[in-house]
């Protein structure tokens, strides 16, 4: 058998799961699309896998007036098929089109993807762009962490041993929000070498709110606040892709000295321009 030996539990309640996860060497299992490949290569050798699949109330997408809550067992395929996500957070649906292949999307979860925190993943930059908030449960309590504070490095997050994500909350965009996603990768669905996510709310020819982040260029997602601000200040009729590309170029100039700065300087403005253009085409 490929994986090294481990113990396995599939508790029926959240409390039981949290008690099990408090043991040293315990690790949650959701869709397994990152974890199982690592078990098979034995890069990971957890002592105990705690399968979350039987726990009630971890599935489904709920809406209130201001936000959508995505349960931790919601798969990419379920999220992509959600009409609520499509209208209130179109960027999530747009980004999922770039994740893996249909069979991977049928099993993999958004929460698992965020916790894995691969710098080449699409969902972390979307979570940062949209100001998502993760709710983390531990047997001793609950806390909320903003996506921007959640990602600490490549494959490294603010989650502590024994904690699990119990919801991902994303503020709703205004009706008519549109999204665009642009990436460079060796093949469609191969890990991104660089990616840009954009969601725009516009009215009367003006950008009311812009949400923009870049991924893969550094260990954690990069929110492009100056590009967001430039778009929001633009007069009607401005060439927004060109403006965004210019602002992105200036942001990158500020990163001079980082190993990726050379590549990023070339690719980021182009991707920002492209992602904004595809967003506007959808408006």
């Amino acid at each position: 058998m490929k994986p090294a030996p481990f113990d396995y539990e599939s508790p029926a309640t959240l409390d039981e799961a949290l008690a099990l996860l408090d043991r040293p060497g315990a690790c949650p299992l959701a869709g397994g699309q990152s974890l199982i490949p690592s078990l098979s290569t034995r890069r990971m050798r957890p002592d105990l896998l705690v399968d979350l699949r039987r726990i009630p109330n971890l599935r489904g997408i709920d809406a209130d007036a201001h936000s959508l809550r995505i349960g931790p067992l919601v798969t990419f395929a379920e999220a992509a098929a959600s009409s609520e996500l499509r209208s209130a957070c179109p960027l999530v649906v747009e980004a999922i089109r770039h994740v893996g292949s249909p069979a991977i999307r049928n099993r993999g979860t958004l929460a698992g993807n965020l916790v894995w925190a691969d710098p080449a993943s699409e969902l972390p930059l979307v979570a940062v762009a949209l100001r998502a908030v993760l709710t983390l449960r531990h047997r001793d309590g609950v806390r909320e962490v903003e996506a921007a504070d959640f990602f600490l490095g490549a494959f490294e997050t603010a989650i502590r041993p024994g904690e699990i994500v119990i919801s991902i909350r994303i503020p709703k965009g205004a009706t008519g929000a549109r999204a665009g996603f642009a990436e460079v990768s060796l093949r469609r669905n191969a890990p991104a070498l660089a990616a840009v996510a954009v969601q725009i709310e516009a009215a009367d020819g003006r950008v009311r709110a812009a949400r923009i982040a870049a991924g893969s260029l550094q260990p954690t997602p990069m929110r492009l606040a100056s590009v967001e601000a430039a778009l929001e200040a633009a007069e009607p009729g401005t060439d927004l892709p060109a403006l965004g590309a210019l602002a992105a170029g200036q942001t990158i100039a500020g990163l001079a000295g980082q190993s990726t700065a050379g590549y990023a300087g070339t690719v980021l403005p182009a991707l920002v321009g492209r992602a904004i253009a595809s967003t506007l085409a959808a408006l």
Partner: protein
Amino acid sequence: MSRDTREITVTVNGAPKRLTVPVRLLLSDLLRDVLGLTGTHVGCGQGPCGSCTVLADGGTVRSCLMLAVQADGMEIETIEGVAAGDGALHRIQEAFREHHALQCGFCTPGIVMATVGLLRRSPHPSADERAELMEGHLCRCTGYRNIDAALAALAGEG
């Protein structure tokens, strides 16, 4: 060596089975090594190649990326269940033969299972839907064109 086993109930190609399996057994190894269903091929064991694709509760999954215990309570369909009981080929298999959509056949069971899943959801898949299906499968022989010709014929465009 395995520390732990579990009893699971799975339906495989319509037949319910109650099995005691090591918790670290992969679904692909359950199918091949325990149940003798070697039509499900294992290429990479890591997710990209798609040769191990089966249907679980009607949706495509990588059997190399599921533990057998995760299939507890599920209905699994493999390539062995596709042709009719008398051995007559399924129309998907006929279309693959007709269009020379396979050479060595290593990738074929996975692609056929994905096609079974796609045609159930979408009986006349568009070119985009067919391209999306192929994103999940590597074929070292055919160059993909004949596979798409078979899929196009099945979609009613042939």
